[in-house]
């Protein structure tokens, strides 16, 4: 019953609001894979997307606890409706010129973009859900991964 769930949380931009939300997750022992935050469609409000694992009941509890935070305006549980989930990932690879073509083949299959190329390195950008980015990393492992930066998933209902 440890399904992945997405909670979309609209918060007022107040000092410490992120600390309050993340503190709640850790204090109550909820399993959170990632939290992304950014501006929302409302002035002075941000939207936070938390990717969490747990049963429906646990998720309901997390949502109820979140709704109690004074700066939380609304919480919606995205997984109950069809949603789009995306994560941006940047990967720097150690690629000698000889292997560039092989790497490019992998990248094309995954519809990624090369955003920077150095004498022996390459930086690629991938956008997709977490599973896609994980799969890409598995294939790239052979090419010497130097650095990974992932945003964590953000999500929206269809």
């Amino acid at each position, binding site marked *: 019953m440890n399904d992945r769930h997405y909670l979309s949380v609209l918060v007022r931009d107040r*000092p*410490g609001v992120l600390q*309050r939300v993340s503190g709640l997750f850790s204090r109550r022992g909820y399993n959170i894979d990632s939290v992304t935050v950014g501006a929302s469609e409302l002035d002075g409000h941000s939207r936070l997307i938390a990717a969490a694992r747990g049963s429906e009941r646990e998720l309901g*509890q997390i949502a*109820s606890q979140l*709704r*109690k935070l*004074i700066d*939380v*305006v609304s919480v919606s549980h995205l997984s109950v409706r069809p949603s789009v989930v995306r994560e941006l990932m940047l990967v720097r690879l150690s690629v000698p010129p000889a292997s560039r073509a092989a790497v490019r083949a992998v990248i094309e299959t995954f519809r990624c973009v090369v955003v920077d190329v150095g004498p022996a390195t390459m930086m690629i950008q991938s956008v997709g859900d977490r599973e896609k980015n994980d799969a890409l990393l598995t294939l790239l492992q052979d090419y010497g991964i130097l650095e990974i930066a992932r945003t964590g998933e953000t999500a929206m209902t269809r």
Partner: protein
Amino acid sequence: METIETKESMRERLLRRERLSGSEILLRTLLLEGVECVFGYPGGAVLYIYDAMHGNPAFKHVLTRHEQGAVHAADGYARSTGKTGVCLATSGPGATNLVTGIATAHMDSVPLVVITGNVATTLIGTDAFQEADIIGITQPVAKHGLFVRHAEDLAGTIREAFAIANAGRPGPVIVDIPKDVSAAVVEFVYPERIELPPSAQPAANPDGEAIRALAAAIRLAERPLLLSGGGVIQSGAAEALARLARGAGIPVTTTLMGMGALPAGDPLWLGMPGMHGTYAANQAILQCDLLVAVGARFDDRVTMRLDGFAQGAAIAHVDIDAAEIGKLVQVDYPVQGDARLSLEALNRELEIAAVTAQADVAQAGTRIPEAARSAWLARVSAWKSAYPLRYRDSDDVLKPQYVIEMIARTTGGDAIVTTDVGQHQMWAAQYGRFDRPRSLLTSGGLGTMGFGFPSAIGAQIGNPDRVVVSVNGDGGMQMCAQELAVCAIHKIPVKIVVINNRTLGMIKQWQELVYEGRFSHIDLGGSPDFVLLAEAYGVKGLRAESKREAEAVWAEALATDGPVLIDFVVDKDELVYPMVPQGKRLQDMLLGDSDTDKDTDTDSENNADEDKKEGAR
């Protein structure tokens, strides 16, 4: 020359638009909120605020001897009056000394506004002298925290803090005011209205469908039980609870936080449930078929092991806090709403149903189980009379339970009793008598030693006409004893009881029962002579070592017009019973009497009970 100012003219004066310092704005706003007394302690970051108090007789401030005393006093004031408690401390150590009191209030849902100074905004984040991020520190243990960046925002922020502290499920709110904000002079504009975010105001009115479903379940239950908690006290729902219990004939168990919801003499009242609960209350939980919890949060000290809690019952849960419903126990009848409004709605529904009951009886499948209900009430009252709370009294040593019974007998259930934490707290709950709400003030959730005495100071200030008794152990008495000075200086007539057994009794009890008698660091021998300690502060001190002395000095204490500390030297080896050991189920309760403990397993008990029932027929 003293001039008398009416409330209206004072309000008009306070609302006057003029240029004021942040500190003056703070004091005015607090007065406009109706604050009667602020408990506090000055320091560098609040000097402007204390300067504004100088020569301001309308503003009442009590100087405690420790910030912890201030926050507990504000808490006792709030618990006993239902109003918001207010305390004030400086930045850094002043603020961190409040943390225990903030967490105490938070766990028991007590509305407090906690004002702290902080270093100037220009110094924030630089590790300045006496700087501490008190909002960050208290974030997990407070309802909310507000930082004031501009003096213009001060009045609105204070008003918001009061509103948040009281909205929905109450709790402590911190307002952190940097020194330059309290110093800045700005135009004072009092915000008549403030907007609260929706999260601060959960729906108070229950859903009609949920109430109808619960009412139907109550009517059809054969063995219903009410579990009444602190929320019933907080929301002023005691009357509605009594009406429900008496109207529908439902026995009631009240949690430690819920004492006084039903008068102690009521035949439907079963006492406290849980670890040190009564036999009748715990049996009722084990045997009921519908458990209606109101304003209670299924604390582990109440439920013990969850797989042994009300296993045969459908569970109804009425709570203002939606996050409490289903948190620990699966709920069949959830009702999110204010306890008073929900119980009133439930009573209306049941009263309407009673009128149309005849029609129901005619309906197929609907049967009001009247015979089963009266059999249930008979069983419950048989448990009450067969297994009352009891202890072995003695003529050689003074028993702590005797002292508590004596206090209850002489104050007739009218006193406000505050307790500290430990054995004496449980004896106070068991043998005390609480006939109305807000009569037992105790740290139920956090279990804070040092709470008992300073909270009584706040309770007495809020209730000048009532007898306030503070019951402490000899351990907890030493955690905030410095506040004796406050009692002496202001002649606050708290009767300070020390149940002195020269040990940390509850720890000793666990070490005896669970850790095979390996007593580790529980000996409090060498504590000060409490009578001399009281006298050193200018508080009258009395001592009793026998029943006769106890009666005499207690009568003297009650007749004394001022604070008195009474040191009751009691039996060192007394244990709190009944007891359900941690990690056990309610059915595994020990009555502390080797004869009865042998047959307290549920099966034999059920049989005995069935036998009694048979006999009664």
